[in-house]
């Protein structure tokens, strides 16, 4: 199917690649179908693009890039909602706030990550119980340092991020599972 996007023009995705957030994004319960787009801009930031609303896209980033000790504890009911059988079959993304007026103030939401089941693309924005997981965790310095390191190594495929860089929609099944999921 062809998807209109605000930032990336027209993209074509296979219907089997649709990401289903049946409960929506918190605050936007009508936005339930997405695809994941790699702008191939060497920032590792991906975009969760709504299929029905071209202007609705959330920048997301895998937390292992900027917070190595991050853990996502899911309840059994959350796992059931995604038909997630094994914790090793899911990826985790944090939603980023990137103020266009000052990009250095970019932050990641540690409190409510988006978890995607790699087997069926069923997905959920979960709210974590941990009090020290804040909604705006500054990441600019860490992300920049990480990009410098992988840039100097010329070793992008081993940078800890599963997606092979190519502009356009990402095939979810090719993502590497997050190793930071646990049960409650």
């Amino acid at each position, binding site marked *: 199917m062809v998807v209109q996007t*605000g*930032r990336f023009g027209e993209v074509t995705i296979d219907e089997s690649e649709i990401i289903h957030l049946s409960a929506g*994004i*918190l*605050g*936007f319960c009508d936005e339930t179908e997405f695809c994941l787009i790699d*702008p191939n*801009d*060497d*920032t590792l*930031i991906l975009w969760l693009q709504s299929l029905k609303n071209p*202007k*609705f*896209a*959330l*920048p997301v980033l895998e937390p292992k890039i900027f917070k190595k000790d991050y853990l996502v504890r899911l*309840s*059994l*009911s959350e796992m059931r909602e995604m038909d997630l059988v094994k914790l090793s079959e899911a990826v985790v993304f944090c*939603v*980023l*706030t*990137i*103020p*266009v*007026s000052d*990009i*250095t103030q970019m932050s990641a*939401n540690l*409190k*409510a990550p988006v978890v995607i089941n790699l087997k069926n693309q069923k997905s959920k*924005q979960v*709210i974590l*119980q941990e009090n020290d997981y804040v*909604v*705006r965790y500054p990441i*600019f310095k860490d*992300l*920049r340092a990480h*990009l410098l390191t992988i*840039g100097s190594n010329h070793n992008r495929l081993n940078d800890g991020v599963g997606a092979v860089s190519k502009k356009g929609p990402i095939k979810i099944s090719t993502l590497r599972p997050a190793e930071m999921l646990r049960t*409650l």
Partner: protein
Amino acid sequence: MLVLTRKLGESIAIDDHIKIVVVQIKGKQVRIGIKAPKETKIHREEVYAAIHDQNKQAVHEAPTEMGDLSKALKG
């Protein structure tokens, strides 16, 4: 909404597994204890509002020019 009156130390049971206790009353503040299976997720209402706000900002404030983002991070 069901409204119940409770005194200090008294509690309310929800289903068989959740117990809510009034632990302390101090002026306009009430401390509440919650006993629930670890499965149960419990959040202050403000957490939802903060996440809604963050999602809104994430959508509306993000750069539309991908080049700006790349330049700021790699420049």
